[in-house]
């Protein structure tokens, strides 16, 4: 068990480093922050001075090593824009994003899974067909289209909800809906097929044949088996709590991580972008790790075991 965890941790660390490296290299090859920050009309000496002061004149590998070293000392650099620490800048935005993504996640789980399970148990019924139809519609419409449609309906036509901005919980309604609808669809469809698969298994018939009440066959015998594939998908959704709102935050001008990312990328604010990407990668990796451990709890066949 210890070796298993150590192995997984090492792999997680390797993933994070790979993401960092990729982000580092791509950011430096895709534009000069000095030009962007200082504007086109600045004299060459100023540009050189800017580069020197940020260490951008050193060879790429030296910059990279310095960056890695700083990260391991806990130093995430400072924003080129206002010289405030990048990490603080990023963390400051996290609550705003979570204000959207956590309610959205709760909606996804609370509506998607029950809808899928219900549809599976009433296969080919009218409700089942309705669920499939809505689910497919839900995850095929891109979120920027969905967001705009919702704004048109609720803000422009009906005028009951604000079209953007933040401050009150009312502002959060449309962005949260926009984020959650696709996920509800995906989860409903996925839960439905997982449940149908499980309900067709011989052990379900065994449970019914031994006299277990129908409701307990579903609850006690089917759901624990269907949970294994569903957890994978939920893990992915949890992992994207931080990064899952980039588009929606932009549409609704919500001051979260996503907007910060968009702004920082266009400004080539290297430290901030790197810090955000690192945070996103870490969230993904951690949720993956949790899912792996959950597998073992849910399915004994996947559990590490000594040879008997």
């Amino acid at each position: 068990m210890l070796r298993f965890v150590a192995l997984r941790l090492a792999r997680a660390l390797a993933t994070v480093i790979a993401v960092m490296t990729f982000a580092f290299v791509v950011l430096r090859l895709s534009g000069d922050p000095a030009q962007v920050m200082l504007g086109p009309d600045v004299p060459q000496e100023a540009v050189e001075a800017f580069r020197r002061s940020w260490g951008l004149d050193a060879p790429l590998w030296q910059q990279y090593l310095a960056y890695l070293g700083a990260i391991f000392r806990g130093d995430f650099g400072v924003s080129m824009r206002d010289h405030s620490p990048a990490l603080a800048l990023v963390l400051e935005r996290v609550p705003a994003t979570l204000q959207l993504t956590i309610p959205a996640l709760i909606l996804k789980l609370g509506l998607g899974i029950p809808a899928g399970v219900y549809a599976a148990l009433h296969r080919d019924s009218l409700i089942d067909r309705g669920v499939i139809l809505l689910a497919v519609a839900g995850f095929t419409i891109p979120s920027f289209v969905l967001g705009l449609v919702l704004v048109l309906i609720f803000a422009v036509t009906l005028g009951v909800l604000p079209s953007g901005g933040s401050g009150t919980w009312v502002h959060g309604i449309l962005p949260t809906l926009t984020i959650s609808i696709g996920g509800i669809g995906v989860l409903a469809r996925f839960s439905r097929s997982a449940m149908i698969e499980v309900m067709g298994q011989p052990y379900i018939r065994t449970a019914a044949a031994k006299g277990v009440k129908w409701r307990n066959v579903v609850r006690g015998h089917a759901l624990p088996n269907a949970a294994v594939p569903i957890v994978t998908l939920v893990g992915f959704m949890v992992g994207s709590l931080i990064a899952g709102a980039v588009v929606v935050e932009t549409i609704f001008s919500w001051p979260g991580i996503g907007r910060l990312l968009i702004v920082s990328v266009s400004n080539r604010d290297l430290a901030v972008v790197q810090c955000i990407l690192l945070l996103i990668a870490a969230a993904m990796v951690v949720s993956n790790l949790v899912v792996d451990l959950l597998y073992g709890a849910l399915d004994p066949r996947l559990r590490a075991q000594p040879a008997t």
Partner: protein
Amino acid sequence: MSRPPLLEARDLVRIYRSRRGLTGAVTEVRAVDEVSLKLRAGETLGIVGESGSGKSTLGRMLLGLDPAQGGTVLFEGMALPRFGTPIWRRLRARMQMVWQDPLSALDRRLTVAAQIREPLDIHRIGTPEERPARTASLMTAVGLRADQGGRYPHELSGGQRQRVVIARALATNPALLVCDEPVSALDVSIQAQVVNLLRDLQGQKGLGMVFISHDLKVVRNLADRVAVMYLGRIVEEGPAEQIFAEPRHPYTQALVSSIPVPGRPLDARILLQGEPPNPAARPAGCAFHPRCPLAQGLCRTRVPALRVPEPGRAVACHVTAGAQSPVAA
């Protein structure tokens, strides 16, 4: 001696490495352990054994589909070329395999006739104009009607699908046919049809056949010689009639006696104790000793060699084969 046997295996070894669980140590499973056998042209060799005996692995190794870690396979006296090489591919036309599940062996998007014809195209047998006629004659040979050629695999019954697989295997005029549980998925009445078909085809074409099955009744009916496998090793070999009439190895005895025969009471059988063996935890000495009613001290420590108690038979048992018998070559 004059002609080499059609197929000869010498000391074949196949080891699978597997990890138990996610953290467990790597264990070695000797799926096939120093197996030697010979097959003459026109002869049928039955290989019987329970799950974990390595009989299917051995079948694949005989065609070079599964690489051997040790030992050699000789086909018509020549060492089998490596899997996937052009020479192997050419040789493959002469050695065919029939699997248990015909549906998964067939392409569901191609008609039956197209699938039987495919090997003719691949190995460029006959001119393209001759191939439809040859396809038709193959279908007749396995008892399929001409109008069934246009059907798709899922439109046929299990028995008919297995006929398609057999027709396809015969398309290249092979000298050797390896059948792995070819009738196990079929109903009794259909099973008899396919067994008769295999026997007739073999008689007509002089094929050498390796017939792998857990069904002793079918093997007795089809095979000239039988090899009994237990945990990767051959424990007994000999003429089919003799093996089933007077098995010598205690395992063969139990296996033969476990076949339910109408009229024989339940308690007249040798009932083996214990579970089928786990290839990953192979007992020391004779692998059968924990379940063997005759096991002695020696059986727990030393692996018995295949000995020849009488010409044509070989038994690997300390107790029943006798130490004075010569060791099999």
